[in-house]
Structures are given as structure tokens and as C-alpha cells.
């Protein structure tokens, strides 16, 4: 069930009404409704993997309790590692088995041995990377005494399976989400309206910008050898907008949907393409994953303590692991490595925390220096996206060598004026709303109802007029 499907448009109001009409706001009943609807939502993808989700939930629920009740450090550690190994084991089997087998065989053949291992036709369960990380954060926090265990299985299951975040995040933390599920929730008019507005903006991003960009990005990437350097650059830029609007659009819909149920999820994007350096970009892009790696990998590895070498090593590790998290392909690993290289000068010169606030916080327009920094950061990001989007490293290298040719200075093969106009309008809107949680949030506090309704109608009209061919959300594969 896609967020931008008719099925979801029917599913959401039904769950919303059942949830809020639960007798006297009965919390237990509300949580049961959330859990059942989340399982139904997940079963719509593939009901067989529901068992895996339930197993993963049971595993972390049980090991979490055992970690908490164990008296000595050794047994706490035992239960922690049991949970980590089983969770990562499933992730490894479903997501990385073929990658390791193929890479091992390739490695042997480089050494002159011939090896023939059979690959498995493994279907990756949708959202496995997200809910696995969800569960892991819970048991690790318990082990580190940051939280208390949740004894109510329904509440814990809703934490893992809450349908807005189940298949593509944001990756929540128990300390943030569990208390919201444990406590009584009152209907909040402002929150609900804000949620609907964020859903609308998410749909616009996904249906209008991402799906239209996808049409051109797919054509150019899939036939890259046939196109000029300038067209390849355009293809990479289209992909940059596609992936941003696809994923942040999904996150907007997820956050907006959760808000309808009185639940605040972690913010996942904060206008990353307005970043002035790569460090700022990574504080604004897929925030819930970046902070997950920071808290559960970077800091346990020593973080920035222990000198320059440690910082460099730990930064390289988290970026490479982050790349690998996205998929079992060397292209993702190189993408992660490239981002680590980008950020390295900032780490070495200790300038990685220079740009903490949003750009031009107290101004309408950026300064020339800020603009150039934004453009440079965006260009570096676009370059890295080539690896992310390519089928293989060879494909990425061919694509890049195609860019750096004489044909870079020719007119691109595609010049979709309507899409250029839409992207410019989109960037302007994002710029106007950059100080808020999402681009059109300002409508709620700056304009009266008639103007708001006209804008909403306008956005719906643009969605209807420029609806691109429907594509599945990119991050579902991760």
C-alpha cells in the first residue's frame, strides 16, 4: 500500500476515525487499533513477512526485558549480543547474502581460483533495515541504561510497527516514541491540520517533482552511453531532485500521518540542499539515520575523542557502513566513501560545525558567499549521487567519463520546460519555508483561511495536472 495510492486514501480515514472514536479515548483500544492497522498495512506488501516482523518484535521485547532484569554485566552483554546477532543475521541473510557470496567468488577469481557459489533468489522484506535499526536502538539503549524496558507488548509492538514509519522510517528512538505511545493522546486540532498540510506537501514532492524527475533520470541513466555530457549532468541533477523529493516527500507524509494520530515523529530532513558544506548536509539529510549511526556506531567507536586519526577512522567507518546500509552493492559503499572524503577536510580543520543554523536565518536572500557554498555543496552531492543511482561501479565510471567530454558543452537532449519551472517553484517555496519544519508550514501561521484554501487547491491542481508516472518510493528497497 503506497502512501500515494487510492488504497491508502481509503485506509487512512478509516483508521483515523476508528482511532479517535475509540470510547472515551481508551488508550489501550487506540494502541490495539494502531497495531492491527499497522500489521494490515504491512501485510498489504507481503503478508508472509509479517511473521518476520512479529518475530523481530518478540525478539527485541524479550531480550530487552532480559537485559534489564539481568543482575550482572556478563549476562546483560549476552542478551544484547544475542539480539544484535539475530537482528543483523536476518538483515544479512535477506539483504546481503548474495552480495557477500558474489564478492567472495570475485575475490577468489582475482587470486586465480575459480569458485561457483549459487546465489539465492531472496526477496528483501520491505522496511527490514528500518525496523531492525528500530529494535536495535531499543536494546542498546536498555543495555546502556538510557531507558526502562516496555513491559506492555502491545505498546512495544506499536513502537516497532507504527505504520507511518514502518517501511521507510524515520528510524525512531524508544526514548522519543515510547512515551508518546504509553501516554494518553488528546486530539489536537492544530496538530491535525498541520499533519494534513505536511501530507499535502509530501504528496506534491513525490507525485509532481520526484515522479517527473524519475522519468528523465531513468531514461538518461538507463541509456547513459547514448547521451552527451550535458545531458548526463542534467540526468544526475534530475536524480538529485528525485531522490530528495521521493524520500523527504515520504517522510513528510509519514510525519503528517503520525501527527493526525497525535504522535510526533523525528524530523528526517531539514532542507539539505541549502547546506553550505557537506557536514551541514549530513546534519540535514536523513537525520534519523545519521543520528542513529552517530549514537550507536560513531560514539561507541570513540567518536571524536582520541585524536585526529581516530576521528578520521571513525568518520570513514560510519560513512562506509551508512553506504552499505542502503544496499548490497559496491556503488553504495563508494557513495559512502566519497561522502567521507568530502567531509574529511572539515574534520581535519575542525570546521565541521561551522554552519549549524539554517542559511540566511535573519535575511531573505543568501550572501554571494553563501550562495556559492550552497552551489558547491550541491554539486558535490550530485556527483556522489551518480554512484548511488548507477547499476554498478563500471556504469558509474562510464557515466562520469561521459560527462567529462567535449559534449559537456552541447545543448542537453532533454529540455522539459515544465519540469524546470516546477523545480524552480519548488526550490523557491522551500527557500521561503526553510526556517520551519517543512516548506509550507508557514501557511498555517501567516495566512488566513481563504488564502490557505486557495493555496491548497492550487497545490492539488498542480498535482493533478503534472502527476508523473507512479514510481515506488526509492527508500522502500532499503
Amino acid at each position, binding site marked *: 500500500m503506497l502512501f500515494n495510492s*487510492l488504497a491508502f486514501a481509503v485506509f487512512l480515514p478509516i483508521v483515523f476515525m476508528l482511532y*479517535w472514536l475509540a470510547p472515551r479515548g481508551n488508550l489501550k483500544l487506540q494502541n490495539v487499533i494502531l497495531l492491527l492497522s499497522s500489521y494490515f498495512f504491512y501485510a498489504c506488501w507481503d503478508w508472509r513477512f509479517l511473521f518476520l516482523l512479529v518475530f523481530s518484535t518478540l525478539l527485541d521485547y524479550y531480550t530487552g526485558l532480559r537485559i534489564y532484569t539481568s543482575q550482572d554485566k556478563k549476562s546483560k552483554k549476552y542478551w544484547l549480543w544475542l539480539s544484535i546477532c539475530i537482528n543483523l543475521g536476518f538483515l544479512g541473510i535477506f539483504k546481503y547474502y548474495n552480495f557477500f557470496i558474489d564478492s567472495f567468488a570475485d575475490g577468489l577469481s582475482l587470486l586465480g581460483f575459480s569458485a561457483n557459489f549459487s546465489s539465492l533468489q531472496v526477496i528483501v522484506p520491505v522496511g527490514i533495515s528500518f525496523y531492525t535499526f528500530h529494535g536495535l536502538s531499543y536494546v542498546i539503549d536498555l543495555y546502556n541504561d538510557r531507558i526502562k524496558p516496555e513491559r506492555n507488548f502491545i505498546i512495544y509492538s506499536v513502537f516497532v510497527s507504527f505504520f507511518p514509519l514502518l517501511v521507510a522510517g524515520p528510524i525512531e528512538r524508544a526514548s522519543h516514541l515510547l512515551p508518546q505511545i504509553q501516554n494518553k493522546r488528546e*486530539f489536537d*486540532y492544530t496538530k*491535525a*491540520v498541520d499533519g*494534513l498540510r505536511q501530507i499535502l506537501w509530501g504528496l506534491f514532492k513525490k507525485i509532481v517533482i520526484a515522479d517527473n524527475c524519475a522519468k528523465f533520470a531513468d531514461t538518461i541513466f538507463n541509456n547513459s552511453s547514448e547521451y552527451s555530457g550535458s545531458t548526463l549532468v542534467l540526468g544526475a541533477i534530475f536524480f538529485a531532485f528525485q531522490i530528495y523529493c521521493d524520500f523527504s516527500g515520504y517522510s513528510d507524509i509519514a510525519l503528517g500521518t503520525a501527527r493526525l494520530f497525535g504522535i510526533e515523529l523525528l524530523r528526517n530532513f531539514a532542507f539539505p540542499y541549502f547546506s553550505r558544506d557537506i557536514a551541514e548536509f549530513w546534519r540535514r539529510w536523513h537525520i534519523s539515520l545519521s543520528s542513529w549511526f552517530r549514537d550507536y556506531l560513531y560514539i561507541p567507536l570513540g567518536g571524536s575523542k582520541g585524536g585526529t586519526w581516530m576521528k578520521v577512522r571513525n568518520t570513514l567507518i560510519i560513512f562506509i557502513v551508512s553506504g552499505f546500509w542502503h544496499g548490497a552493492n559496491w556503488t553504495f559503499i563508494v557513495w559512502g566513501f566519497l561522502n567521507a572524503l568530502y567531509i574529511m577536510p572539515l574534520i581535519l580543520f575542525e570546521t565541521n560545525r561551522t554552519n549549524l543554523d539554517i542559511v540566511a536565518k535573519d535575511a531573505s536572500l543568501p550572501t554571494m558567499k553563501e550562495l556559492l557554498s550552497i552551489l558547491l555543496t550541491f554539486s558535490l552531492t550530485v556527483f556522489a549521487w551518480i554512484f548511488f543511482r548507477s547499476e554498478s561501479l563500471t556504469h558509474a565510471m562510464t557515466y562520469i567519463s561521459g560527462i567529462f567530454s567535449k559534449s559537456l558543452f552541447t545543448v542537453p537532449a532533454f529540455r522539459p520546460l515544465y519540469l524546470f519551472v516546477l523545480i524552480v517553484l519548488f526550490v523557491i517555496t522551500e527557500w521561503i519555508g526553510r526556517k520551519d519544519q517543512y516548506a509550507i508550514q508557514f501557511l498555517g501561521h501567516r495566512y488566513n483561511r481563504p488564502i490557505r*484554501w486557495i493555496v*491548497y*487547491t492550487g497545490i*492539488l*491542481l498542480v498535482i*493533478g*495536472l503534472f*502527476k508523473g508516472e507512479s514510481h515506488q518510493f526509492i527508500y522502500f528497497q532499503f
Partner: protein
Amino acid sequence: MRKFLLELMLFSLFLLLLISISILLPTTPRAANSLLFAKNQKDSLLQHVKGPRIIFIGGSNLSFGLNSQLIKDSLDLNPINTAIHVGLGFQYMIDDILPYIQERDIVIVAPEYQCFYGELMYGQEELFRTIFDVELKDIRKLKTKQIVNLLPYVLPYAFSKFKPSEYYGFKQSDVYSVNSFNQYGDVYAHWGLPRTNFSSFSTITEPFNHELIPLLKGFKEAVEAKKAVVYVTFPGYQAASFDRSIAQIDKVESKLKKEGFSLLGTPKRYKIPDTMMFNTPYHLSKEGVDYRTQLLIEDIRTRGLN
């Protein structure tokens, strides 16, 4: 909560009003040239052509696959090709044509194979556009299932009224236009055009729709009550596509036989070589049109209908 629901309802009503207004806006210049407007000509033919008449009902396989002049010359019957597009759905085609059937009419029905599978028989965007662009009063002919099937086309249709490309800079299609039909209702605009490259259809995967055959049966009985006759024939289908769905096609034939329909030819007989196709697996080139029409003439003669 109440305030939220009330405002949501108000906004939905506001949207509904806007959608209704845009649906009822005049047909756009681009849509006014569409082949769907051929319905007016075909209705007129059904009203005015004198007997002995032979009436053809089907989708674009018939509109792009029949040379009625050959029928007229060979069988001494007055042909009326009512076919426009399969997206109108067989339910609508039959409901629309039945009132025009006269005594001693010969009615030949040639549904595309896909009509027997999935929901195609209830109509698609073409039906929605026929109702709202061509003949609004036909909305009364729609059954519940058709209305449900047409719901996804409401918004795209409403939004299309605001598309600049519907008003400016559009180019009238050489083939898919209201002017593409000859005096009998056959599309003939493509007869002089070269064949274009196209992909064959993949295997039919949708489930068999058990409602089309009873619908055809009901139609047959209604026609016979008017002292006319109904025959079912098979579409001229590109060989490559035919071979991919042979099991599904055999099923259609055996069901029709089992239900006692009078059949003209067999599916295999109307399997058309790839070289005789025009631009889709159901659209025939002039050579294909004549070939298919000759087969049909032979089958009609075999039945002694001329």
C-alpha cells in the same frame, strides 16, 4: 475533533464543487477532435441506413480492421461499423446500440479477447470522455459497476480542463480523429500510411470475467426478440500476441461454444501475420483489413447470411 471534521468536510465540498464545475466546462478543443466524436456519425448511421443491414460491434480492432465497402460489394448488405474504441466497454456498446436494432438486422459482435478478462467490459477513460464530452445524457445508461470502474478517471478528466495543451499548440492526430472514419464507420485514415513499429501484447494475466458471456447472451435474446440475428466472431489479432495468450483465447472460444453462440470462424483463423498490422496488435494495415474482411465475408457466406 468536530471542528476539524467540519472544516475537512467543507474543504472537500469546496473541492467537489470545483471538480464538478470543471467536469461540466465545455469540451476542450483538443478533445473535440477526438475519435470518440465519431459516435454521433455512427448513431446517425444506425438511425438512417436502410435494410438489409449488417451491423458490426466491437473495439478498435473492428474500427481499424474492417473494409465495409468490400462487405457491401460482396454480400449486398448495407454495413454499419459501430466500433470506436475498446475502452468504451462492451456493456456500454451493447446498451447504446440495442435501441437501434431493427427487424432482419444481422449483428456481428467481435469483442477483443481482453474484454473477457478483467474489468475492461465496464469501460475506461474513453467511456468517461464519451459521456462527458460527447453525450451527457448517456450517463443514464451507466450501471453501478461501470460507474465504479470510471471513478479513477474523474480527477484526470477534471484536471485536463485546465491543461494549456488542451487549448493551444495541439496537433490533430492523422489517425485518431473524428475525421478518420469513412461513410460506413471504418477508420480509413491509416490505409495509405506505412506500418509503424510496436510491441506485441504480453500474456493476458487478468482473471476471466464471467459477466461478459451472460451479457452477450442477454443481448442476443433482446436482438432476437426484435427478429434480428446475432453472430459472434473473433478479433483479427497479431500472431505474436495471439501465441502468447493462446490458452486464454482457447478458453474464450470454448465458453462461447458451450453457451451456444453462433460463431463465425475460429480464433486461429483470424490470427493475423505481423506484417499485416499497423501500429498495435489489434490495428490492421490496409492489407490486413482486406485480408480480415475477406475471411469474414467467407464465414458470413458459409452461414448463408447474404
